[in-house]
């Protein structure tokens, strides 16, 4: 019986690992075989780019060793748009990525690159106004990268005073679900001091960091076979309760006992004194009696 349960448990493990494999197919990395059965469930993809006035550089951090020969990938591009306060949205940069289509129909975005347009003179002025008014700098992305803008734009905003450091530091976290963008978190990469001080950037160039996030899989609820539980229970029963010191166990008896003893001692000492005193008294009284 025990063996059977064990067998069952093992088969369950195998089965569950099979399922785990399926879900692992959603990995970002092109190299499927290298990662078979591997653990990472969260697929974070970091990209950082910085644009300088002269030329736009893209520095993707992840490089692939080789690409899949049966390539179903397609390049997609989607634009980042921005708005200053209540102004209308205008293009501010372009994300380009590869859309990988998996055999089971799932799609994932890989190799995200970002090129940020520089602020024009007008935009600089608008941004300065935002800084003065402590107003919002807003960005938006299409909610679907394959057929932008999809259903709706995904909007994020930040108080403009949070961005300037030496340059303009920005940090994107794009939450993806397949080819859909759920939400984008936008802000400065670090802390934003409060109260926010008015500070103009030294350089009007963006320092962009981008993280692509897809959803994490919840860990399985641990299932214990009865054996483990039973064994534990038995152990738990056998295990003696933690040894407490003598004092911890019997203090409630010891204190009164101590008091009684103390009482007795004082009584005894009194008694000891009393006879002595009595004798002395007697000695004194006897002469007195004699005197009578």
């Amino acid at each position, binding site marked *: 019986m025990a063996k059977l349960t064990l067998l069952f448990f093992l088969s369950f493990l195998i089965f569950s690992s099979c399922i785990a494999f399926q879900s692992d197919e959603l990995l970002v990395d092109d190299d499927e075989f290298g990662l078979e059965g591997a653990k990472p469930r969260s697929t974070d993809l970091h990209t950082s780019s910085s644009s300088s006035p002269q030329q736009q550089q893209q520095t993707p951090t992840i490089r692939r060793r080789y690409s899949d020969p049966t390539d179903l990938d397609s390049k997609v591009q989607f634009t980042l748009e921005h708005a200053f306060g209540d102004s209308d949205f205008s293009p501010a940069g372009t994300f380009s990525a590869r859309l990988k289509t998996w055999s089971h129909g799932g799609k994932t975005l890989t190799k995200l690159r970002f090129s940020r347009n520089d602020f024009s003179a007008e935009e600089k002025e608008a941004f300065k106004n935002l800084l003065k008014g402590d107003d919002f700098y807003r960005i938006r992305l299409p909610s679907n990268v394959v057929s932008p803008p999809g259903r709706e734009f995904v909007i994020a905003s930040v108080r403009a005073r949070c961005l300037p450091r030496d340059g303009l530091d920005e940090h994107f976290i794009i939450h993806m679900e397949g080819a859909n963008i759920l939400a984008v978190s*936008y802000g400065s990469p*670090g802390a934003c001091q409060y109260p926010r001080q008015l500070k103009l950037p030294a350089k009007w160039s963006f320092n962009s960091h981008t993280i692509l996030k897809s*959803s994490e899989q919840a860990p399985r609820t641990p299932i214990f076979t009865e054996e483990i539980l039973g064994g534990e229970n038995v152990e738990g029963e056998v295990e003696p309760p933690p040894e407490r010191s003598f004092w911890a166990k019997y203090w*409630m008896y010891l204190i009164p006992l101590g008091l009684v003893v103390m*009482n007795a001692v004082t009584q005894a000492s009194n008694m000891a004194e009393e006879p002595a005193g009595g004798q002395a008294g007697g000695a004194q009284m006897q002469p007195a009696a004699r005197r009578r």
Partner: protein
Amino acid sequence: MAIRVFLTLLLFLSSAIVSFSLYEDQAGLTDWHQRYIGKVKHAVFHTQKTGRKRVIVSTEENVVASLDLRHGEIFWRHVLGTKDAIDGVGIALGKYVITLSSEGSALRAWNLPDGQMVWETSLHTAQHSKSLLSVPINLKVDKDYPIIVFGGGYLHAVSAIDGEVLWKKDFTVEGFEVQRVLQPPGSSIIYVLGFINLSEAVVYQIDSKSGEVVAQKSMVFPGGFSGEISSVSSDKVVVLDSTRSILVTIGFIDGGLSFQKTPISDLVEDSGKAEILSALLSNMLAVKVNKRTLFVKVGGEGKLEVVDSLSDETAMSDSLPVADDQEAFASVHHEGSKIHLMVKLVNELDNVLLRETIQMDQHRGRVHKVFMNNYIRTDRSNGFRALIVMEDHSLLLLQQGAIVWSREEGLASVTDVTTAELPLGKDGVSVSKVEHTLFEWLKGHVLKLKGSLLLASPEDVVAIQELRVKSSGKNKLTRDHNGFRKLILALTRPGKLFALHTGDGRIVWSMLLKSPSNSQACERPNGISLYQWQVPHHHAMDENPSVLVVGKCGSDSSAPGVLSFVDVYTGKEISSSDIGHSVVQVMPLPFTDSTEQRLHLIADTVGHVHLYPKTSEALSIFQREFQNVYWYTVEADDGIIRGHVMKGSCSGETADEYCFTTRELWTVVFPSESEKIISTLTRKPNEVVHTQAKVNTDQDLLYKYVSRNLLFVATVSPKGAGEIGSVTPEESSLVVYLIDTITGRILHRLSHQGCQGPVHAVFSENWVVYHYFNLRAHKYEVTVVEIYDQSRAENKNVWKLILGKHNLTAPITSYSRPEVFTKSQSYFFAQSVKTIEVTSTAKGITSKQLLIGTIGDQILALDKRFVDPRRTLNPSQAEKEEGIIPLTDTLPIIPQAYVTHSHKVEGLRGIVTAPSKLESTTHVFAYGVDLFYTRLAPSKTYDSLTDDFSYALLLITIVALVAAIYITWVLSEKKELSEKWR
């Protein structure tokens, strides 16, 4: 010295007596349970026999119940499921209560005396249709008179004895709608009348023994029908045509079919749109035209004739046979604060059998329904009693010009609950009262002492129990030191506000919402929600606290809202206003003005927000924080969550300075093909968090990410939004999010593959616990997510703290990138859940318990320690000392942990917790069809002595000791003296 020893011993003993769980005799001491049935839809009287007089009712809360006609108590009741609405009730064979429910697909028979189910038949249905129940009146056990049920396109004949389906007939013809099933008494022919596409009337004659169609007649009516119908006799019905201006009498005597048209304008001068009232009167029908009720008599040849007309606001009962083949009906109308009950004969409307005038509470509103019953008086004449249903859903029995009993059935449909303090007690108390209470107090304690020393006789035990239930002063209407006495304010669906006392659950006051302007469009607003408006403390002590009741005129989302401010102490409405815009969301702000009135923002459908109270002081407070006010909206149907910030004042003629426009800051767009929002939840705004940090076993600190702006969102795949088991595990997944509502950042996102809703969640401090179904494991699961702040993690160093080099006092802004991490763990849970709550205490020190409303309508208290994400399989010694329980895959359900003990809160919908002044104790109020209240102490009452503590024993001991000291002192003095004299 001996005294000290004795005292210490006594103290030990008294502390050892403190009990740590609920014993049998403690039930009902602090808790109470009230049983309700809901607004009555149908009522059937059962008064023939000499035994108990009873009335069988079915209600809008899907309850079928038998009530005592003498006292209004419930003999028995059954709460059917939420989707099992009752369509009809009848009594068959004089001993079974027959109910038809679920759109005519479930027919059940209940034993009349005790409510046991006798049989249940599920009937085949094919389409949505009216469901009609006709129960034969005769008492003979005879298969010739089966119960005729129409529902879902099929006509069934069911034997009343065992529920066997005798025959069934298919009426699922395209466009055919059955309107009436009639069976003339003594006849074996059943007439089934229906309309095809509301333009052709069809009558089937069916043999009641075999179910075969004997004859069928149809006739086209050129104008078309409106669908309203009234059957006036066994061979005639009256319908309204589609223009609602012509009454058509349809006669189907002996298989023929005839129409007779009578324009309303012939009957009454000022014609308008007519409406047929549902009251069943023999050879007569009631029509409502231009707010007047007309009684139209139907002659032998279908001739219509107006015999009487009444003003509006009249409620009528069905007619009832009284002696000599005559039928009578009751009508009730209002006049000021009185109601008039009249019973008239149908044939002679001038002959008023009964005329009674009864004083009626204004806060019960209008009469909605009347059910009449007759009885034979001691002088052999006819007596009548009437059961009336009022606008506030209360149920009253009228007899002999008086209200015999009343039931506040509005409390079965509580929509929102809040708590309020009672007024402070007066200082001056008369001396006699004190003496009386002192004597009583002593007597009680002597009794208790007897009980604890096992000297009490059985009578004494009863007296002790009574004393405990009365528990001196727990029902007083003043505030107490521990905060145990409070008012529970419950808003009900009909718009009535009740104040219940926590001591015994009695109604302290009640108030029906009124429309402020008495406009025709909105006669009675329905209540939506309840907010604390003014909680005086600090500098407004003289003000009475008040609550804000937000109501709405009509069910439409754009319907104008109504605000009403109610004084909590007196239950009087201070003011009410028609706010002229719709109410989508009410947001209490964390600011109060100088009179402690809380500022509220109300969002309307246009996207504007309005500030209340409309005072210049409130406006100036709001302007100061204008930059920092954010709000969000959840569009569950579109799968979009939007964040907004204040922009400026409204423009336009109608706008005032308290109206503001907003601007969209962020959006979260869930892909419509893969995710659908099923649950959103935030923390309670008034929750108190005692400690920001959590000390680990390895003397490590974890900082809780305690933010008021976190939103928990759960989404499922659109396919998985249906019932559990309707999809395969591969098709369904559940994703949960924690979203910052200021910036729209997703702080935590976790997907559960192969899981399905419904999701029930509770959010407190820095954790969320949610309950859902795991399709792969075929079990319910509970997952806990705790979110911790990493940015303050460096503040562990003592030196840093001493030198002030920490960022603990730095203001926290949402625009900083949050450095958080989450811990999460899942457990199986054996039960399906209706609602989850968490206990809340005054300072948040006491450990928390989850209150789980189970499918069995009970409340289970589960320690938060069981859903700790840090539980491991083999906790180390240090972890055990910290109180970490070894990991198990299933959460335990301990039978003793049901706080409802033997009670069931039928139809449980919500649980509300409120702190008392005593840190250890929390108020718990659960509502559904029933109400239940209890006090809980999640970590035991560590800060007070129990009620059982015998003060008398302590007092007597002290007195005895003092006496002993005195006596021994006297004795020793004497001894010394005699010693000296020796």
